[in-house]
Every structure is written in structure tokens, then in C-alpha cells.
């Protein structure tokens, strides 16, 4: 059964004030189009969880959607500081909960696996654990040593962008996988955005590539270029120039306000956004072809 709907409908139906949101994708496939729609719909009090808040949460925090961030690295990747989140934390207007990358991902692994916690080897570093009561210890019954554990993270809603999916939400993903699959399995509701909607026969031609099964997906949205200014492997490049520009834009509330007005509030959807970026950007972000060697599954 098809789950295809517009991004507008998917956000309206599945993202609510106060939800814990995991917009997934580690540097790759970050679903900016979804965050822009959330900003446009004025959704409030969200708990924004992501290993790297990245520009996507910097914009949502600036737009007033968030009450709290949960993260493990708060930077503008390859550029520097994540100014809006940082300013809000330093000003005391935004709650936060902090982990290392591995403990953040372990929380998702526990959530996705239905486990009450995940163990981690000792790191010797205790300052963060002293500040965050979610870090606990259990005694290893085999050696008697203390083992650090973290509890499951189960977002209310995860947004996952993929290269290609069928209308039921069975999705092929390649390139950097990050924590995307775990976020989908850990979450209660899943909004899938896809660069291409394909016939199910394409998905079935390579079942090992299907990392997200339709059975856990609630909405399927066809959103080309959803990930800009991040990227979609094989479809378009990362807009490094914009990541640099954001470092300037995000310096003041005023310039962020202008950006949001021009590129979010005054733009109806991702198609209009992409169109507005114009041919120079389209040209600059084009990815040439470099195809995988096919494999034979065999006709049995």
C-alpha cells in the first residue's frame, strides 16, 4: 500500500509540538527540506536530537522550534562554530544533553534493538558522565569490572532521506550511512524522503541494499534535493560554499531572520527552493556518473 504524500502533509500528520525529533544523516543525506517545512508550520518545543546538530538544527533553533538539543558534536563541520545553538546555550535559553559520538549512537542502537541499555568499554573520561546522569555503570558479571552503559534513545519521529525508495517506503541507501538506519528503527514514527520514487522491482533487484524496510515507514515523500546544503551521494554535491556563508549569516539574529524569510518562509517547498538557488549552484553541485559494478543474485 502506498504511503506517498506531500512533505507538507507528512510533517502536519507526524510531527507535533513537543516531539523528540531525529533528523538523521551524518554529514550526508541531511533532510533540510523537512526542517524548513517544520519551521514554516511553526512547530514548537521540539527536542532536537542529532549526533551533529549541523546547520539543520542551527536554523531550527534560530527559528524558535526547539526547547532542547541532544548532541555529541556541535560544530559547523569543516568550518567552525555552530553559532545559533552555541549562543542559545551560552545565553541559557536552550536546554542541552550531551554525549560522545559513540554513546549517542549506542543510545540509538539500544533504541533500535529494543534493548534497555548498551554497554561500552571504559574510556577513562568521567567529566561528561558526571554531568549527564544518563551515563550509568553496571558490573560486568564475568570480570567484576565496571562497564559504562547508556539508555535507549527512542525519538517520537525520525526523518530519513534516501536515494531511492518505492511508494511503500522500502529504500536503497548508499554512501555514508551514519546513524540513519538506527534512527529509523529507534523512532516511533518515520518520515522517509526520497530523491527518486522507483518501481518496487528496482528495490527487489538488490535486497541487500534495502536498509530501511517499508514496514517501519509512515510517510514517503518525493523530495529531490532534499539534503541541500548537505548532499546526496550520486545525485548532487555538498554545498561547501553555503556552509561557509552560514558562518557569516549566523553571526546575528537579524541576518538569520533575513535568511529564514527569504529561503524558508517565503518559499513554498523544496522545488521552489531549488529553483531559486539558480543555475550556477545547480551546475556547481552536479555529480558525474560513477556506477557500481552490478552483482548477480541468480535466478532460482
Amino acid at each position, binding site marked *: 500500500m502506498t504511503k506517498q504524500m506531500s512533505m507538507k502533509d507528512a510533517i502536519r500528520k507526524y510531527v507535533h509540538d513537543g516531539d523528540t525529533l531525529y533528523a538523521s544523516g551524518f554529514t550526508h543525506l541531511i533532510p533540510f527540506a523537512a526542517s524548513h517545512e517544520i519551521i514554516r508550520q511553526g512547530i514548537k518545543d521540539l527536542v532536537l536530537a542529532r549526533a551533529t546538530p549541523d546547520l539543520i538544527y542551527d536554523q531550527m533553533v534560530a527559528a524558535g522550534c526547539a526547547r532542547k538539543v541532544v548532541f555529541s*558534536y556541535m560544530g559547523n563541520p569543516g568550518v567552525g562554530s555552530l553559532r545559533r545553538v552555541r549562543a542559545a546555550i551560552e545565553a541559557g535559553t536552550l536546554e542541552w544533553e550531551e554525549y560522545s559520538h559513540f554513546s549517542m549512537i549506542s543510545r540509538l542502537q539500544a533504541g533500535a534493538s529494543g534493548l534497555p541499555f548498551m554497554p561500552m568499554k571504559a574510556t577513562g*573520561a568521567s567529566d561528561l558522565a558526571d554531568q549527564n546522569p544518563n551515563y550509568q555503570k553496571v558490573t560486568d558479571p564475568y570480570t567484576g569490572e565496571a562497564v559504562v552503559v547508556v539508555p535507549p534513545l527512542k525519538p517520537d519521529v525520525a526523518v530519513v532521506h534516501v536515494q531511492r525508495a518505492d511508494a511503500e517506503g522500502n529504500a536503497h541507501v548508499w554512501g*555514508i550511512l551514519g546513524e540513519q538506519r538506527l534512527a529509523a528503527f529507534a523512532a516511533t514514527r518515520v518520515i522517509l524522503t526520497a530523491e527518486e520514487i522507483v518501481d518496487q522491482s528496482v528495490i527487489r533487484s538488490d535486497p541487500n541494499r534495502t536498509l530501511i524496510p517499508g514496514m517501519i515507514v509512515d510517510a514517503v515523500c518525493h523530495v529531490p534535493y532534499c539534503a541541500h546544503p548537505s548532499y546526496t551521494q550520486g545525485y548532487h554535491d555538498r554545498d561547501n560554499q553555503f556552509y561557509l556563508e552560514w558562518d557569516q549569516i549566523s553571526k546575528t539574529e537579524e541576518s538569520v531572520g533575513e535568511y529564514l524569510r527569504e529561503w524558508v518562509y517565503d518559499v513554498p517547498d523544496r522545488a521552489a527552493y531549488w529553483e531559486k538557488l539558480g543555475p550556477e549552484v545547480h551546475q556547481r553541485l552536479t555529480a558525474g556518473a560513477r556506477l557500481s559494478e552490478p552483482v548477480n543474485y541468480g535466478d532460482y
Partner: protein
Amino acid sequence: MTDELNYNPSELMVVNAARLLQDGDVVFVGVGIPNLACNLAMRTHAPNLQMIYEAGVIGAQPSRLPLSIGDPTLVSGALSVCSMYDIFTLYLQRGNVDVGFLGGAQIDQYGNINATVIGDYPNPKVRLPGSGGSMEIAAWANRCYIITPHQKRRFPARVDFQTSIGFLSGGDARKKTGVRGAGPEVIVTNLGLMQPNQDGELVLTALHPGVSFEQVQENTGWDLKQSETCTVTEPPKQEELRILREELDPGRIYI
């Protein structure tokens, strides 16, 4: 010969870091200076070095200079790509990583690193990016290197916050925590090299050409000891500089 003047501090650090890497090393790496050091080592004495990125990329062969750890050029043509959970468990936690590169706003006398806050954690004066992968890299890579400019504010006697550990308070404090890796082995700066002594205290083990001990002490926040065997590093070779400038970073983005 005026070779020793013909390079800048970044080039000096990259070259010295590259020389620490061994052929066959599996290196957990980020973009920027550490990435350049690995690529330089691969093009000189360590052709079988393998780079791992925390994003899940193994054995990248980028055809352009990567500008973020998630650059698509790291993926196309890589040997393997896996999930982040797999990278941190099957590779790092399991013990398959020889070398980790670390950095931070502060590194203290015992090699502990702060990348979290300046000031008080609940009410930070400066909110830094946080651990990312460094808490685990510092603990689980067989050995670690730190590359950083040598400035007094970067080298306090004690860090404000221990994001990732060196030798804690020294002695056997690190060993007692049960972490698997040996800890920071060398700190490469623009002035020289520091290494832990028996007690885990960072001492000066090499000066770069033309640098004095006093210069280093002035830029270090504790009473710095100089190793009895302290040497002077070999200046960057023309070939090393050529590879860096012509092949690896022709746009001079990091050097």
C-alpha cells in the same frame, strides 16, 4: 641552504606528523592537517597506510581535497563504507585502529584534552563543540597523536574539562581505568615535539630548527621539562613540501 626557512608552521607540523606514521598503520582521521599528514605519509614512506573516517569510510581515495569528514569524494572509490555504529565498535572499540589523531581547545601537562567548555559546564563561558569521537579515540586507538599550534592558552597545567583522556593525573592513573590504548604518544606543535615521560607528563623531546627551549616554555602553561635526549627535528624536505603544495593542497586551504 635556506631550506629550513622555506616552509610555514602548518607545513612543518604536517611533515613532522607524517613522519610518525608507519607503513601499514590503520589511522582514524579527520579532515585538515591530520588528513594531509596521512596522505603525505602514503606518498612517501607508508604506501600501505589505511585511513578510517568516523563517518564510516575506510580506505578512501579522494580525487580532490576533502573539505568535511563527510565529503562525497571520500566515498566514491573507497574500499568500504559502513555505519557509524560499526566504525566505533568493529574497528575502534575492537582494537583495529593503530593511530588516532586528536585535537582540542586545551591540552594539559598530562595530555588530557578539553574540547567541551571553557569555564563552568552548566554555565559555560565558551561552549566548544564537544567530544565527537575523541573520547573513544583517545581511549581505544593503540596510540594517539595531537597536532596543534603551540600557545600558552592551549597548554594549561590542567584542562577546565576532561573531554578525552591522556594520562589523567599521571603515574598509573590511565592504566587503572582499563582503557585499551596506550595514550598520546607525541604532541606535534609548530615549535617542537612533546612526549609523555614515564610518569605521563608531557616533556619536550624535540625542537624544530631555530626554536629555543625558552620559546617553548614561554608558550606552555606549566614548568616544562626538557628530555635529556632532546633533539632537533629534520627540516621538511623539498620533496615533502612539493607533494604537499602541488598534489595535496594546491589551493593552500590547510597549509
